[in-house]
């Protein structure tokens, strides 16, 4: 019995390690490339690890006039998208699950309507809308566009989670003197932290790395996000791959940091016992 369990564990570990290695290899390759001097990157005898470790690519990257600006724009757009999505989706999901209003069911379903169209189909209409609203080439346009993409997902995820919270907890909160907003803020959100964290992480990543809309709606260098900025590093005749790799790593870093920060909530509490356990 014990041997079998050990064998299963070993097989699981080996399989998971193999999958992880395949998934992480491009990232590792990028990281190592970013730490190599140029002559070690374009060479007839490429090696995985740099012979001369260097941070020159990063120095060059941050010396570029626009690069910090791209980073800042991305951070701003992604954070605002994540924050707004979480707040709006939480309120919408709360209303859809626990409040009574006419057209509730229809509204709940129409939330998914935007998912019926492929992104590329929405590019031109959204461009027109932003043009009419004089929002072209603004970060506001990006945040609003991302919200229209992230909200259906956020609402759906939070709604499913909220539905698993016993309604008696909310009723207890109402009897304890909470308004609907306080019920959401003081009781529902803390209990639904894993789902809230998931929505925040996923919308942040989406806003951080989105390319299609950012490339269409933003036209000047000042408002570019890092996903678009990265493309400007690829030259027409010659590309500095070390620089590009460094930029890639810098782009991934905040996402990893953000994920690590909320990982605790994602994992913890999924098995949260809310009211009673069978004795």
């Amino acid at each position: 019995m014990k041997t079998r369990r050990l064998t299963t564990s070993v097989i699981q570990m080996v399989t998971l390690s193999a999958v992880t290695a395949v998934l992480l290899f491009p990232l590792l390759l990028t990281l190592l490339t970013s730490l190599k001097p140029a002559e070690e990157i374009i060479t007839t005898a490429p090696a995985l690890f740099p012979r001369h470790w260097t941070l020159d690519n990063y120095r060059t990257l941050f010396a570029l006039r626009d690069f910090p600006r791209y980073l800042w724009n991305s951070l701003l757009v992604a954070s605002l998208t994540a924050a707004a999505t979480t707040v709006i989706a939480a309120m919408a999901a709360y209303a859809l699950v626990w409040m009574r209003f006419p057209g509730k069911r229809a509204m709940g379903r129409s939330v998914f309507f935007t998912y019926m169209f492929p992104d590329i189909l929405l590019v031109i209409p959204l461009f027109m809308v932003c043009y009419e609203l004089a929002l072209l080439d603004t970060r506001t346009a990006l945040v609003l566009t991302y919200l229209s993409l992230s909200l259906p997902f956020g609402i759906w995820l939070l709604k499913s989670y909220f539905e698993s919270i016993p309604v008696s907890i909310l009723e207890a909160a109402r009897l304890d003197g909470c308004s609907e907003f306080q019920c959401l803020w003081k009781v529902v959100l803390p209990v639904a932290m894993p789902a809230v964290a998931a929505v925040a992480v996923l919308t942040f990543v989406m806003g951080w790395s989105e390319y299609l809309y950012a490339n269409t709606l933003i036209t000047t260098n000042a408002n570019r996000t890092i996903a678009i900025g990265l493309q400007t590093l690829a030259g027409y005749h010659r590309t500095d791959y070390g620089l590009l790799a460094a930029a890639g790593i810098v782009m991934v870093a905040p996402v990893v940091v953000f994920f690590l920060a909320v990982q605790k909530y994602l994992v913890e509490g999924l098995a949260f016992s809310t009211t009673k356990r069978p004795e």
Partner: protein
Amino acid sequence: MAEVRLVHVHKVFDNGAHVLHDITMEVGDGEFVVLLGPSGCGKTTVLRLIAGLEDITTGEIFIGGRRVNDVPPKDRDIAMVFQDYALYPHMTVYENIAFGLRMRGMARAELQRRVVDTARVLDILDLLQRKPHQVSGGERQRVALARAIVREPKVFLLDEPLSNLDAKLRGHMRAELHRLYRSLGATIIYVTHDQTEAMTLGTRIVVLRDGVVQQVDTPRGVYEKPVNTFVASFIGTPPMNLFPACLVQEQGEFLLRHQDGGLALPAAKASAAHLRPWLGSTVIAGIRPEHACLHTASPAMGKGLPGTVEMVERTGAESFVAVRTGYGSMVVRVPPDLPVSLSSPVLLTFDAEHVHLFDAGSQMRIL
């Protein structure tokens, strides 16, 4: 503390289900009233209407003389203990108890004093820093009670608070609840489907069936004078035996004639004027297991209802024997040491003093 009054209350849900019909009842100041009925009879809905968690369709509810139909739950000054306790899982026991006071803006020192005092009363002082999932079921129950008590509300509403506990703990908590009730002098409305809880805790019992109040009376009144066959068979473990019999009058004496004999009703109990409308017709006779007698020695020795032993339930202090008769199965309470063997022929006799009579049509009590 306050009294609670429901006047002609109806509840129809959005799906058209009419779950409460014309509920009118009054719970006096400091009373412990138990709403008792089978699952789905609407007792929890009554509680939720009083709490304000559901809107009433028609009728009026008064708490402490104030009409509360349109008053939100938080302003009704009531506290409720839920069947699943509904503790906030992300808060410690202390925060759970303090939450209601904090929401009402109580000063920190006063709040702390009240929480600690309440925790002491319920013997959960050492749990205050734990989360709900770190304490046992019985302890969680106490926390839920503490959360209700700490607010010192006008009325306590308890929705099957003991149903998630094991039998031993339930007995213990029942005694504890009774002690709390006496020390608080609170108005309590308690929902249960467990008649032992109802009989031991309630000062009065409201028996509900299909959203209609059947009887409002003291536990003793409900047990000894059930208003209809439903209450008669719902209250009491095992339930009252019911069988059809014909009511006749012979030589000035009222007799219940059944297929295997008859039973004379005591003159003091049966008044001619009262029973006349049913003379010559079939009525439903009821007898509790403790008022029936089992004769095993010689089935031919006297008058009675013959039958065969179907099942013997020995609970320790007493035994219950189910006897198959011409009217179906009847249960008799016997001393634990009475030798009874399965399938043996027996004879049942009834204590006429304790016979209940019900109208065969309306099922309402006659005697």
